[in-house]
């Protein structure tokens, strides 16, 4: 008899199980391509062990999505009437579990080579990796797979769960999705939050565990078994609302704190590591030159077949080739990557300077460009974003409280952000001295003051 359930070994979750229908999706070109996309871009140049791929992460997200789904829909865990009314009946639950797992498996298929984040510069206007994800999920090739499943899946339902809500709205407005997905039900919102949510999204749970394992750092670990076991759908009674949200039983609060601390440490120590970020900048510089030499518009292709044909392997081969000859497009950036000759961190945003001028890093960047030439200065930034760690907690006496009322730890976790300015190693000493002397003037001079009816620089 043919095997119905297939086990895949995994260093984080031990076994990941898929049935034969799901295996068709795992074996699709879109998911198999992820075997050749680095999960952390060029981070292996800083953390040599971090060579894991989007493929195993996507399998991990699917596995965790199924586990969380089973916990939050278990009869004894659905105690509130408003939540009971929202959770579908048994026959439909099986459908939604399958949709959720497929959305989790496919949530990253639109990623560019090296998972590169500079999509605004490298993709045509109106495109990002999530729109590519949508195009793949709705492609004829994949719709055949969805329709052959038992029960058959609607591609639109998979999109609703795989894509962040604000992006979905944007794609509807751009005509890339039908208007019916612009607003989704409370149930679909919970399942979407289960994958991409800020607090308990399984995407984040898997990447923190997996990235810390491969990078060789301990910051990303937390007790995800305990956390998952205590997740619940709860009405937000602490906000005087019956609207349901993903929350946690009080017994799991410390695991939730550990997850959110892990997120803070991983962002500040690994994801925002300045050398990691500057290699992203060198890669972007290379890709911009390489794409210009390949395509008229100088952008990555957005047709599904073209996208699926392009992986890290093609880009890495091009980098190695470009680094051999100064006349090659993208030579300088390619050489820096190959020879490990990255730019150095000249300035990073800090609370003292931000108190004088919130745009201090931008001011330093502009002044450095003027002083050393724009080819010799690079900037990379990510402002603090996302949701504060405010989620419902079911207390021992069955009240629903805000996590921030119960946990002082959560209230004190600062939002993570960075804003870096880099210069080549050959200019570093000069630039450092220059900045030491000029900084007070530089960060003051960019203040914008509005006086009575006029704006002065």
């Amino acid at each position, binding site marked *: 008899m043919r095997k119905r359930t297939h086990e895949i070994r995994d260093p984080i979750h031990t076994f990941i199980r898929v049935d034969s229908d799901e295996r068709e999706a795992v074996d699709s070109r879109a998911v198999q391509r992820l075997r050749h996309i680095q999960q952390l871009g060029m981070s292996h140049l800083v953390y040599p062990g971090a060579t894991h791929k989007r493929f195993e992460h996507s399998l991990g997200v699917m596995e965790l999505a199924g586990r969380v789904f089973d916990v939050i829909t278990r009869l004894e865990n659905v105690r509130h009437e*408003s939540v009971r*009314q*929202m959770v579908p009946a048994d026959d439909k639950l099986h459908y939604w579990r399958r949709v959720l797992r497929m959305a989790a498996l496919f949530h990253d298929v639109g990623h560019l080579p090296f998972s590169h984040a500079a999509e605004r510069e490298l993709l045509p206007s109106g495109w990002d990796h999530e729109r590519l994800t949508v195009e793949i999920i709705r492609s004829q090739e994949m719709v055949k797979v969805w329709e052959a499943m038992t029960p058959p899946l609607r591609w639109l339902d998979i999109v609703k769960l795989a894509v*962040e*809500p*604000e992006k*979905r*709205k*944007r794609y509807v407005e751009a005509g890339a999705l039908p208007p019916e997905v*612009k*607003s*989704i*039900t*409370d149930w679909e*919102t919970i399942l979407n939050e289960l994958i991409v949510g800020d607090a308990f999204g399984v995407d984040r749970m898997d990447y923190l565990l997996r990235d810390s394992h491969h990078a060789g750092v301990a910051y990303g670990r937390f007790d995800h078994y305990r956390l998952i076991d205590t997740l619940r759908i709860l009405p*937000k009674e*602490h*906000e*005087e*609302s*019956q*609207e349901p*949200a993903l929350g946690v039983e009080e017994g799991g609060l410390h695991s939730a704190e550990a997850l959110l601390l892990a997120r803070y440490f991983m962002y500040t120590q690994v994801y925002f590591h300045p050398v990691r970020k500057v290699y992203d900048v060198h890669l972007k510089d290379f890709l911009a030159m390489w794409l210009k030499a390949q395509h008229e518009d100088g952008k990555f292709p957005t047709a599904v077949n073209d996208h699926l044909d392009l992986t890290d392997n093609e880009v890495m081969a091009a980098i190695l080739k470009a680094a051999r000859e100064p006349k090659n497009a993208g030579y300088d950036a390619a050489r820096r990557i190959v020879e490990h000759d990255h730019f150095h961190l000249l300035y990073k945003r800090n*609370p003292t300077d*931000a*108190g004088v001028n*919130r745009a201090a890093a931008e001011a330093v960047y502009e002044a450095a460009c003027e002083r050393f030439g724009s080819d010799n200065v690079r900037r990379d930034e990510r*402002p*603090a*974003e*996302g*949701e*504060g760690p*405010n989620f419902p907690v079911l207390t021992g006496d069955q009240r629903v409280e*805000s996590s*921030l*009322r119960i946990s002082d730890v959560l*209230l004190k976790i*600062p*939002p993570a*952000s960075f804003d870096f300015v880099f210069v080549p190693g050959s200019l570093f000493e000069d630039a450092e001295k220059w900045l030491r002397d000029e900084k007070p003037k530089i960060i003051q001079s960019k*203040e*914008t*003051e*509005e*006086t*009575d*009816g006029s704006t002065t620089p």
Partner: protein
Amino acid sequence: MDRPRRDVILIRLIEALRERGSWCGATHVQKAMFFLQEMAGADTGFEFTPYKHGPFGFDLQDELTAMRADELVALQVQNPEYGPSLVPAAAANSLKQRFPKTLRKHEPLIEFVAEKLGDKKVVELERLATALYVSQEVGVGTDASTRAERVHAMKPHISVGQALEAVRTVDDWRREATKLKSE
């Protein structure tokens, strides 16, 4: 509108809501900003999507988080019964002082919104904001019952009767806001 000016408006909106007794959690600020932009006409440029408790600005959420990082606002648990409130923080006043013109221009609009929403709880804000969102989506000329049905379809825990009341309230407020903007 650039970021510092948007932030000044947000700080002043939080102050105005609090002056009227609002608990001023993230949902209160989200919905008040939605009314300020979409009904009172402030040119703040946030993008609202149907999501938690009705229209929700993910970019507004990011901005509030960035403002927390820059000590312009802070989270504070004031009332043990409820979740955290957003309050102006250490750097808020100096930013406000730099943009008197922006503040003066938006003060009547902020006051209008704070007066209407300052005493509202999340459950009421959810109904009113969803009613405004639906009215914009299907057109304010669409009859009130049809809009109420749509509100109920989007948020099943809001009854059709509650939705109808919210649609009518929003219609009244829109007329007042139009008058205010023409003054």
